[in-house]
């Protein structure tokens, strides 16, 4: 007995389902959002309409979305890259902060000593480095003892958050702007900052994000490094026979993952924030990156699309909060709901589902 549903494994899933599942998930999530909007006395259609205006259907909204997507792609790639080896790096949030710290340090300390383009590169590099370093303890302990990287990377997010708060609110040190009494980050020199396109919030770093996504796509599909990752992910035993050093590969994959999230943090420094900005913590870009990666089913190119969608939800939510009294958290509800429905919908891709009537032949066979 039990649940009267029978799952028949599909050998290959129909193509239309690959698109239908995410689209249906988004619609279902919007419906869930509508319920909460209605329950709190907000008209859903008007709300979604202004959400769209703030994020996609206006020039200003869309360029804001692309600006945020630039960073979200990085944290999405970070989560997606680790997942290629069935590793869950939930620490993207903290690694992003560290990327901001590393980037701001390089920008302030080295920015004036190098020509502009080199200074920008160094800032990005130091951000990635800091993000990669931040994940070394979870990475080493995972590789060495098998410590759950899920909980260890997550715990470090809170440590990183407190570190940022200490640098800006708790001390008057290097990262704090010395010219104002108001606690805020010290700006990096102008030479370290890239110019946005026109009067938008989109920065040239978006090309870097997209390029990285394509590169990682190639790396996993075509390179020998990617092949080793795939073998180890599919069968640790086979990897052992093939002479793949599993601990070392685990370590490198997690560190690269951390570096990707860190790079996102540094992109904030060379772009919109120009400093170590504790306000970024409120956006939850690291956590959203995990959702984006899962929604894109860890396909690096799909991560770009999912990032734009989620960045749009966030940016639209922000503009909602300003223009109406709908809390921005409606965007977070929708983000979570999309993933929940997409996960549920996955089952339709993997299995053919039959409802088994009690007493029927199939029911007995099951």
């Amino acid at each position, binding site marked *: 007995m039990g649940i009267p549903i029978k799952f028949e494994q599909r050998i290959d899933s129909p193509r239309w389902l690959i698109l239908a599942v995410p689209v249906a998930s988004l619609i279902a999530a919007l419906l869930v959002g509508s319920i909460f909007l209605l329950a709190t006395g907000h008209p859903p259609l008007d709300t979604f309409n202004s959400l769209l205006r703030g994020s996609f259907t206006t020039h200003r909204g869309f360029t804001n979305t692309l600006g945020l997507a630039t960073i979200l792609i990085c944290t999405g790639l970070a989560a997606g890259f680790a997942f290629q080896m069935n590793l869950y790096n939930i620490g993207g949030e903290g690694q992003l902060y560290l990327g901001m710290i590393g980037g701001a340090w390089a920008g302030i300390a080295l920015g004036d000593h190098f020509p502009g383009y080199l200074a920008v590169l160094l800032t990005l590099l130091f951000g990635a480095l800091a993000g990669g370093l931040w994940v070394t*303890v979870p990475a080493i302990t995972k590789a060495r*003892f098998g*410590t759950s990287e899920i909980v260890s990377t997550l715990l470090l997010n809170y440590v990183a958050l407190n570190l940022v708060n200490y640098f800006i609110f708790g*001390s008057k040190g290097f990262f704090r702007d010395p010219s104002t009494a108001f606690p805020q980050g010290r700006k990096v020199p102008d030479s370290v900052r890239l110019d946005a396109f026109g009067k938008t919030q989109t920065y040239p770093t978006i090309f870097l994000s997209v390029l990285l996504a394509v590169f990682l796509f190639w790396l996993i599909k075509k390179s020998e490094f990617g092949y080793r990752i795939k073998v180890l992910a599919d069968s640790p035993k086979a990897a052992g026979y093939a002479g793949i050093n599993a601990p070392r590969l685990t370590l490198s994959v997690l560190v690269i993952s951390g570096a990707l999230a860190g790079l996102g943090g540094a992109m904030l420094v060379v772009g919109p924030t120009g400093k170590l900005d504790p306000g970024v913590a409120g956006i939850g870009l690291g956590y959203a990156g995990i959702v984006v990666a899962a929604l894109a089913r860890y396909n690096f190119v799909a991560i770009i699309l999912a990032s734009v969608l989620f960045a749009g939800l966030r940016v639209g939510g922000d503009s909602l909060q300003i223009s109406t009294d709908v809390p921005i958290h409606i965007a977070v509800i929708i983000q979570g709901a999309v993933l*929940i429905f997409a*996960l549920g919908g996955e*089952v339709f891709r993997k299995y053919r589902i039959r409802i088994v009537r009690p007493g029927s032949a199939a029911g007995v066979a099951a």
Partner: protein
Amino acid sequence: MNNNIWLLTFADSISIATTLILASLGALLTERSGVINLGVEGVLLMGVASTFLVSDGTGNPWLALVIGTCVGALLAMVHAVLCVVLRANQIVSGLALVIFCTGLANFLAKPIEGKPKRVQLNAIDFGPLSDIPIIGPLIFGHDLITYVTWLIVISASAYMFRTRPGLTLRAVGDDPATVDSQGLPVAAIRFGYTMAGGALMGLAGGWFMLARSAAWQQQATTNGIGWIALALVVFAAWRPLRLVFGAVLFGFTLQLPFTLQAEQIKVIPAAILPMIPYLVTLAALIAMSTPRARAVLGAPKALGQPFVRDER
């Protein structure tokens, strides 16, 4: 004087352990049945939010706790539907739950942000018992739910290791195929324990609101306690009674920064102070995964694996 402060800190650690015990016992039950629910932090937060809303609306703390508990069970049901029925990835589902709950809790409670709570759980009056030195404040200074929690955790241990359903619970997490071959419904059992676990997490959040927080504050409310609770399950080697010791220890690390700050004791740099609970948890997690510790630990063998009979 100084002694008094430390005594209070210990008493507070025992008090705050209530949330940790409830939340991690919820995670423990879920995991013992073979399902891993990473959504603890989110369910906890929704427990906090719903308990606050109901207590604010009705002024009845007990009703609020019941609702908070039910909300926890309902949210865990989402996880159970995804993971047990639809066989989705349990890790991702748990994370999705965290994000959904965080958004929902903040959305629902936005209009009342910063509003002080209307009712709170008070310590039970034990009369002269509370005046016993040391033992008084440590043991006889808590509210009803704390004592109920102690009772729950002792019964959970007895249930798991001394009763037949408890044996089934452990078996379903270790070897679902055998349980299945005995004609017991693996999926239904896992579904039930996942929901029961969620109920405990919801109660953990509700108690946290009514006993420990002054007002509903956006964002910072649970501050990672749910994740600490998950690490605590590993620390306790999936045994309820060990949770109690772990919870008091972790409760102490949560309390310590406040005491050190209040007392102006500068043994630890101010920058590190608020990081202590997370760093200690991380250290404990790593220590418990060394080969020697692993040999005595007993993670449920089928943890995180959906049970699929057809493919056997």
